[in-house]
């Protein structure tokens, strides 16, 4: 797997769909590709947020820490972006991510990501658009629940 395939993966992520390919290449190049063994944690709930990850290969579980122990709330697979909220809002990790099987991910460093956003308005717009859409979806869900 090379940079090119990683760029393909990044393009599948909704947040980066409209970003210029050269910028995605820069994003991929400045990121690290890391492998996690099954059961190895990407990060734990409460850790400081230092990076976001794009799953390139494999599956990972989203775990929430409860008084009765960790419970799995979701499962992530191919081309999922995870941990981006923490680096954007500068808050600690809200959940634990653990590799469910040998998993390869692209680790996007927080500092580099923020610098790219500051440098390229197009990328910032793409991120904003994605966040706005998520907010809209949440609102819609809230309306659906309350009615």
């Amino acid at each position, binding site marked *: 797997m090379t*940079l090119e395939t990683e760029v393909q993966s990044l393009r599948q992520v909704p947040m980066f769909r409209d970003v210029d390919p050269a*910028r995605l290449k820069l994003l991929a*190049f400045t990121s690290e*590709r890391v*492998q996690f063994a099954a059961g190895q944690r990407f990060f734990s709930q409460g850790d400081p947020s230092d990076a976001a990850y794009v799953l390139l290969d494999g599956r990972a579980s989203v775990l929430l820490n409860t008084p009765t122990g960790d419970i799995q709330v979701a499962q992530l697979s191919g081309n999922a972006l995870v941990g981006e909220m923490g680096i954007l809002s500068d808050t600690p990790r809200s959940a634990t991510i653990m590799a469910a099987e040998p998993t390869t*991910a692209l680790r996007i460093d927080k500092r580099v990501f923020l610098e*790219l956003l500051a440098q390229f308005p197009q990328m910032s717009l793409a991120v904003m658009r994605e966040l706005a859409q998520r907010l809209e979806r949440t609102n819609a869900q809230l309306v659906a629940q309350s009615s």
Partner: protein
Amino acid sequence: MEKSLFRYIWTHSKRDQLFICFVVLLSQPFYFISLDLPRRIVNEAIQGEAFKDGNATAPFLQIHIDWPQWLGGGSLHLFDGFQVGRVGLLLGLSSLFLFFVVVNNGFKYWINLAKGVLGERMLRRMRFELFAMVLRFTPEALRTVKSSETATIIKDEVEPIGGFIGDAFITPVLLGMQALTALVFIMVQNVWLGLMALGVIAVQFTIIPKLRRELLRLGKQRQLASRELAGRIGEVLDGIEVVHVHNAYAWERAEIGGRLFGLFSIRLKIYNRKFAVKFLNNFLSQVTPFLFYAIGGYFALRGTLDIGQLVAVINAYRELPPPLKELIDWDQQRLDVQVKYDQVTQHFAEERLGPMIESQEEIEDEPLAGPLVAEGLSISGPHGDMIIEDASFSLELPTNVAMISPGSPAASIMARVLARRVPNFGGRICIGDRELVRLPPAVVGRRVAYAGVDPILFPGSIRDNLIYGLRFRPMGQTEEDRREMAQRIAEAARTGNPFESISDCWIDYERVGLKDEQDLDRVLVTLLERVEMGEAIYLFGLAGQIDPERHTALAERVVEARRRLQENFRSNGMADLVEPFDMGRYNEQATVAENLLFGVPISDEFMGRNLADNPLFRSAIHRAGLTDKLTRMGLEIAETMTEIFQGLPPGHSLFAQFSFIGAEELPEFQAILRRQSRNGHNLKRDERTRLLSLPLAYVEAKHRLGLLDDELRQQVVEARSLIRETLEKADATGVEFYDPERICMAAPLRDNLLFGRVNYQVADARHRVAEAVAAVVRELDLLEDVARIGLDHEVGAAGRLLSPQERASVNLVRCLVKRPDILIIDGALAPFDEERAHRILQALLDHLEQQSLFMVLSNDRQADAFDVQMRFSDGRIVTEKAADPQRRAKTPAMEPAPSVAGEVA
């Protein structure tokens, strides 16, 4: 120092000056003979005057002295010489000429050498005396003395003085004699003309120095202005951060620009004056012949003066101006140098200096124990306000004391008084039966340690800084070349310099209860661990290099540790974390350059991009058939880089961090790419070199551009032995090659332990590898050896390569290792957070069982741990003895050495 430069020179160099003078006088007859010989060769030998009476032979080497007319005439024959023919006379006189040339040049050589050496010796003496005075500056003087100004005084301002010293006495004597001879000759010919010449000289020697007085004033100004310039540059550099923070570039530029203009204006005034004086001087020396011609000629016409005499006088006068001119120049130089000297001595004026620091005589070295009693203490602050007034206290040493003065500097000032940093206070402080102020500095230096807020470190290794306080005097001679030593000491004796050499062993191991260097290192490491620097020193050690001669024990076990580590990786399923160096396999985690060299570059020409330009390396990869492939790789890298980094402003941090190509090179590589796509493979040599340099830094696992295939990998691996052969054949020592069975001295210790590269693509690999390394180091009991290498870590200028906490730790250990009877801590723990400060404090209290600790605290929070609380308020001091210091109960069992891991690259 002497007030007058001449007295100073005379006091310290009269013997040499007189001797050189004597040799100069001795050389004069030879010089005159050699001037006379060419005339004789022409007249006597070539034109044949010696043979004009039909003589077939003439005397050669005839020595006789013709007495001048006014001594009654006649001549004294000493040696009648050899009778030789015409060719014989020519050859004889020519050889004689050659002989005198050699003799004269021999004299010249010796005189110049002697003058130079004399000047240099005096310079050395002066510089050393000035430096000795630097050590004596009083605290008040130090507030106004600028370090860079003082440095430029000692280095630059005394330099011309040194150059002058060799000429100080010899030149006036020699030139004066020449001038006097000419003058006497004129006098003998004609008293009136002689008096006339004398009159003009008198005018020259009275007016010109007067005109030069202004020059001296300007010279003084210039010296001060340029000294201040040096001082200002030093200040700006020391405070460069403030300049950056407040964007004061324009101000500073204008500041310096203004000073430079000031210097220029002074120089301009100097030039105006100087050349005007020169003009006058030249005029006056030309006026004398005018008088001779006009007045002498008039008398000759009137018949009162013999024409022959007039011609002789005029001829003699020709000899007069050059020495006079030089004499006047010498006088100018003398005044110049005297001004400089005065300025220098003013900087080191007596009132700015403390008492002489007596040399190391043997002193009674009793422990500072017994009761510490202070009576009627009064200390005033910097503004004249009383900070402590008529206070008294008494303590039984050893003890530990918390000095608490919330919101007032009283405790800190008291601490400085105890450390003898404040000399002026009222009242008495006694320790046992000795008064504190009367203790010799050497005793205070050994028995009292003071750690203030500002940890001052000198450039050098951490170890050098830690043992700074142990170097009282040289203990024993190390093996030094005896002749060199004799010369060094003889020179030191001639110039008032110290005889001690810093290459001797300066540490009295016995006094601090140690056996040897190793023992000392052990103690240093233990102490560093106590003050929370254990992990840092371990990491410095891993990053440091092994010197097999100094770290023999470790060097022998590195390979063992390396093997153990690899075994551990294998048995713990961590084999994918580190890819070991293997002569037969391409290392995916290493750069292409490292894969090709299979070693670590030692010299610059094999490092970084220089490698691409190295002819040996180039020829080797050419033979391996790699040049084209690597160049193509370089093209691909350049293409990718120009594509993805386009649009980032130059200087953006991502460039420096990630790009193969610097922002400033981007356009050049773009040009190369354009040219290449236009004319195919026609690249210039330097373009190829630049392209070739790119893939050298490429790591497939990290950069993931997919540029390596198995064939290329195989070729790179095969090229290794070719490169090694080429380098070895050319005797190039720029690369140390990897060998699994040997240590690689050029590589840091951690690389030697890993003998491979950490996998970029395994999550959290660095951390896990670091833990594994730490485990093996502990398992093989190498922790201390690693830390010893860490002691070699450089601290940088003013310790800037260390963090503030590390600097504070070094400062504390520097005090502790002296084993002082009294340790005074005044803000030295400030860089630590409260929790660490508390831990360090506990460690200190435990460590100083038999010694006393005085610590300045700003509040009561940690005061409970001390035996005595000394409180300061309204100028009073109250001491309370805690009935039961709580620290014993609170002290946790001594923690094991903190776990060390850290990052491993």
